[in-house]
């Protein structure tokens, strides 16, 4: 060990550049990881003491600002926007990979628009949702307006991961399926899609993560009502919005931190899940 260090020191004496670079590398990675640790520890320390059981009761009142309705709204939001977005995302990917002529104009345009969609900032989605769904279609601040906005936002995520997963399916499998007399359609649904499931799943997890943390796109579409929406046309608030509103008047700061803890736990959970799926993908 000692000899190893000595050898390293000798190298660095010969090349100060190497030494400086090594130092920068260590400093940078320490900064990156340190920041994450700092943020996590800070939020947990501020929030955990205020995580009372009351915050998980089913009824939100102005006295007990329960986050349960928001958690349920978040889950509903995730579920419904996935239901809308998944068929569009998956079928688009199927078209691009299995049907379209490679390099054709249509394919180019679809790629370009998908790329564009994934670069649009949340606030522009929120603005669009407010102009189109809330005002032009007259849905007002509603669950549906929020869901539609989010669905468009997560569409490129699902599209792209599915496309990658489909491309990764070996061509032999398709040939084999054709050879056994299956048509294109049958091949897609029985052979290609099933083996692309883990890839699609990783896209779904990414989309869930994005939805859970979203605020800018939802403030002016979903609104901020504190109860579980009881119809598609009633307003609601997701957990991230709940945290935003709670802190607003300075009346419930501690509860806002407690909400942040739950948000962080959700995000960590989602990330762990995505790590698991990624591992599974790599093993195959």
């Amino acid at each position, binding site marked *: 060990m000692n000899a190893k260090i000595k050898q390293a020191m000798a190298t660095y004496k010969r090349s100060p550049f190497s030494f*400086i670079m090594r130092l920068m590398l260590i400093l940078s990675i320490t900064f990156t990881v340190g920041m994450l640790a700092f943020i996590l520890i800070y939020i947990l320390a501020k929030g955990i003491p205020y995580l009372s059981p009351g915050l998980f009761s089913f009824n939100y*009142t*102005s006295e007990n600002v329960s986050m349960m309705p928001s958690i349920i709204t978040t889950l509903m939001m995730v579920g419904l926007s996935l239901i809308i977005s998944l068929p569009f995302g998956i079928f688009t990917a199927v078209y691009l990979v299995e049907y379209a002529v490679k390099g054709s104009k249509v394919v180019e345009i679809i790629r370009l628009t998908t790329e564009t969609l994934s670069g649009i900032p949340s606030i522009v989605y929120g603005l669009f949702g407010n102009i189109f769904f809330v005002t032009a279609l007259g849905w007002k601040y509603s669950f549906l307006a929020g869901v539609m906005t989010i669905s468009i936002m997560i569409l490129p995520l699902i599209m792209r991961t599915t496309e990658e997963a489909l491309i990764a399916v070996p061509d032999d499998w398709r040939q084999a399926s054709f050879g056994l007399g299956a048509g294109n359609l049958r091949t897609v649904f029985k052979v290609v899609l099933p083996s692309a499931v883990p890839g699609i799943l990783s896209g779904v997890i990414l989309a869930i993560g994005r939805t859970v943390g979203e605020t800018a796109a939802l403030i002016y579409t979903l609104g901020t*009502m*504190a*109860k579980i929406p*009881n119809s598609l046309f009633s*307003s609601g608030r997701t957990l991230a919005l709940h945290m935003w509103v709670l802190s607003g*008047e*300075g009346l419930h700061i501690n509860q806002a931190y407690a909400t942040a803890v739950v948000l962080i736990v959700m995000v960590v959970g989602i990330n762990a899940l995505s790590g698991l799926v990624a591992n599974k993908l790599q093993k195959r």
Partner: protein
Amino acid sequence: MKKVLSVILAMAMVSGFTACGGSENTEGGLENAFNGTITVISREDGSGTRGAFVELTGVEKKNEAGEKEDFTTVEAVIASKTDAVLTNVAGDEMAIGYISMGSMNDTVKAVKIDSVEATTENIKNGSYSIARPFNVATKENPSEVTADFISFMVSAQGQQIAGGSYITVDDAAAEYTAAGLSGKITISGSSSVSPLVEKMAEAYKELNPDVEIELNTTDSTGGMNDAANGVSDIGMASRELKDSEKQQLSGTTIAMDGIAVIVNKANPTENLTVEQIKTIYTGEVTEWEELA
């Protein structure tokens, strides 16, 4: 390059710390020895708290053309929420801000206005000058259930709730009795009024279980626009209705609220005149020592 940068950073840190120490030393000295550039913290355009504040302190005044204009200095930090005002004032010794009295807490200090303390008493008798009404507004001929909820807000029960953190408008209001209505009411607007209306809505729903109330928090002007456009049944504003709004909406005052002018706890300033506040917010005065 990197080394140079880190050296600069280290130097900046050191000088930063010594600067802090310096200001602490002078603090303990003579009265009015509080020095430094004022950090003016304002709310966003459209906030009812800002609307009421600039009107009552004269920050909103007539321009050369004789039109009313908000002269808040462009250097003011714009905080979009009460919480951001509180956090900034609590952390910055040089800061001044304003918030609803209902949101006051002990991380900051409220100053007296023209030697009058911000208390319920003083607002009721009119001696504390920076107070504003909480209004709810509807279009002409609101639905039966909407009208019923508004009558609840100004009834004895409603006013009792208002008296909790805010100031009642009618201490001799009549008792409300539920008429057994059903339906849905959508409310949106001021984030200052919203905690109060939320409490009132809860009490109302206990008496009228078949009524559904949906409350969205935006800001005063937003609430008035929503009500005028039919996006919501009731709009909430933490200020008087503007003349243009009165043409489309009819307002009801459900409570009064003081606006507390707040400074950092380390700030020795105890009292400010309305005139001083005006000069701070219009940017004529930029240093604390100028107020001495």
